[in-house]
């Protein structure tokens, strides 16, 4: 099983701005570790300060971690089809925990069956997520979105 990796990226960057902090992990009863490991690497390489919670992560743990590390965004992965159930109520819990307006992304096999990407996005936006990404999305797409949403290039 995946080793929880909370290591911070120690590589030196030329940017003077502090790194943006993100919390990632696989939500619910989902143990798909590989995709999460790839995302972890990709985000570290892109210069983010990543807190990786690994697999089998409940909503509460994402939120507690985000509060302690002062995260700018929470990125939830789900590969096993139950993502909608697992993600329901997450935005409300964030509001409750004082993380009002925190950026929430979801990605993976987010729904059961073949559903057009627009509909997946619509369903997750209805759950309070800012963005949702379907299967096969390249990490560079998420990174570009994060840079835009967190105003990193302004």
């Amino acid at each position, binding site marked *: 099983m995946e080793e929880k990796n909370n290591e911070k990226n120690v590589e030196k960057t030329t940017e003077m701005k502090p790194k943006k902090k993100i919390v990632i992990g696989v939500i619910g009863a989902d143990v798909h570790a590989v995709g999460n490991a790839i995302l972890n690497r990709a985000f570290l390489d892109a210069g983010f300060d990543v807190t990786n919670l690994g697999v*089998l992560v409940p909503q509460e743990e994402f939120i507690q971690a985000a509060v302690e*590390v002062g995260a700018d965004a929470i990125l939830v992965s789900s590969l096993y089809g139950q993502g909608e159930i697992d993600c329901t109520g997450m935005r409300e819990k964030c509001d409750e925990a004082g993380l009002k307006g925190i950026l929430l992304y979801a990605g993976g096999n987010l729904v059961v069956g073949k559903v057009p990407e627009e509909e997946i996005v619509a369903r997750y936006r209805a759950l309070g997520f800012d963005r949702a990404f379907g299967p096969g999305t390249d990490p560079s797409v998420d990174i570009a979105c994060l840079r835009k949403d967190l105003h990193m290039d302004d």
Partner: protein
Amino acid sequence: MSNILLIDFGSTYTKLTAVDTETESILGTSQSYTTVESDIINGYENALSELRKQTGGIVFDKRIACSSAAGGLKMVAVGLVPELTSKAARLASLGAGAKVIKTYSYELTKSDLEEIDSSRPDICLLCGGTDGGNKEVIIHNAGMLAKSTGHFPIVYAGNRNAADECAEILASKQCIVCSNVMPRLGITDSAPVQKVIREIFLTQIVKAKGLSKAQDLVGGILMPTPSAVLAAMKLLSKGTEREDGIGDLVAVDLGGATTDVYSMCNGHPTNPMTTLRGLKEEYAKRTVEGDIGMRYSIKGILEASSPYEISTISGLPEDICLEKINHLAENTDELPSTEEDQNLDVALACIAVRTAVARHAGRIEEYYTPMGVSYVQTGKDLGSVETIIETGGALVRTGYAEKIGQYALYSPNDPMSLRPKKAKILTDRKYILAAMGLLSTEYPDVALHIMKKELV
């Protein structure tokens, strides 16, 4: 140098242990009733003359003391998220030998502050946020503590990026900044903060508690008593440079008011299919159950069990059990005199040990996933611990240490509790653990040998 006197100034008893470091043996032990009010020196003198009856008029080359007198080291722990920095702050304080009055989370309110002030802690530990993490809450809490009317020192061990600002806010107070108890999410580092707490204890607390006279007499009170026990357990488990210890262990100190549990083991998940959730706890862990004790907290034992169970273990009818429990709660200095009382004490001790060790140990949860069964562990897995050490009058006196010790082990009635599966039970018959912790500061090999000999 050969004869050493080890002193434990307790809240009710002053306990003495005389050791010969040449022969690595205990020359004698004694204890005497004391209160700070009745002058701690009298208790010491009485215990000493008692000890001399066993040892004769020997000269002590050195005296070392620890203390839990005058309420022990009272601390308040402040953190951010209850399961994370608040828990880390609490565990770090307990590991420093403190009595944690209360643990606070999130922003301190005005009434929290009033509560802290009226509880008169000796030290307040202020934590919150990982390094580079949340700053707002700890800055708010520093602001609240700055308004405190108390004169206790504040140890800052939170987000290092907010340390300077908090130190400035707390400029009117005594504020000592040290490294974060949770520098990264889930990772604890309590050694630096514990070192600072010990220094404050040495330089300020002993004096503030009116123990200066005792300190002058014995030449130094080195640490709070629980921290001496912790040092002894660490030594027994890990050994010294020259000699191996006995490996992973759990120790239970069952007292009249509280029950302390110590574990020395990594406690990492043993199954590769198990994920660890939450705080990664440290090798040396101490917990204190304030509601579990043989006399003052006897009602807590009843609450953790049922009259039916106490009756089953003790063999006494339920109504007699309840009657006796009520009586003992009122008469806290009563020791068992009849066989019935003895059986009741054994039953209570069994449940106290089970409850305290279960709260100390980690837990595992099963998850049925589309990929099969997975496990999530919180806290430490004590499953592979092979030694349990029992100390405290109630455990030693009953003569049923073996039976009571079995209740610390894994039980099919509570399979998710990660308690030791099978362990040898050792008893601290002479009540020497704190003394050996003190001795280990200068003679670790001697302390290790004596413990290996005396704990049987």
